[in-house]
């Protein structure tokens, strides 16, 4: 199945595009998607450990299945609100 993934913030800038399309096996999960993204866009590989994947606007772990036609997005650590992110 074709997975269409939206990219945001540093992920979008590193990849040089806002959307990536990757081909996944039917029944693929989020971990498979991350591996496919790293392969398709090597410049994202270093970021991927910190990126969460959203499936239909909810955060999903690596074992989560990807339904056909799902809305997918790569979510770097968020920093909305006001102060600089919590810099622990």
């Amino acid at each position: 199945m074709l997975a269409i993934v939206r990219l945001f913030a540093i992920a979008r800038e590193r990849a040089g595009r806002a959307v990536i399309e990757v081909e996944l096996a039917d029944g693929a999960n989020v971990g498979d998607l991350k591996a496919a993204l790293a392969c398709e866009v090597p410049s994202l590989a270093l970021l991927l450990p910190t990126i969460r994947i959203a499936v239909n606007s909810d955060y999903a772990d690596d074992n989560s299945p990807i339904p056909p036609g799902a809305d997918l997005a790569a979510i770097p650590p968020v920093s909305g609100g006001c102060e600089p992110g919590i810099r622990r």
Partner: protein
Amino acid sequence: MIEITELPLDHAAITDSVRSNLAGAVCSFLGTVREMTGERRTAMLEYEAYPEMALKKMAELEAEARRRWPILEAALVHRVGTLSLGEISIVIAVSCPHRHQAIDACRWLIDTFKDVVPVWKKEVWADGTEEWVHPGMNPPGSGGDGLEPPL
């Protein structure tokens, strides 16, 4: 009220929108663009959102806050785009019967917002450099995004 907008935020109008005759307290929080971060001077900030998911997560935050506190009305509004120094990036306003409820709910909402709502900020420094702020990826004072491979 749950909203992501490119327009300047009217914090007084947003605060007014949560007032109620049942409320004994209204608490508003404003996030504003700060000029100095340590020794570094900010020229402007750029905010980017994943709007569909951000709105969903903001609605979930409001629902969870309503489970925890007797909230009468709540408003969560975030601005995106380019913001100048001193401008308001976010307004959270909450009304409750009693003040400690409103203050606690407002604080929980802003603290949790910053962990889960997909909105990102890029610092445009006065020296012309730019830097995405991604907590956990930006070692303090690194001047970079902390993503270069270790030497």
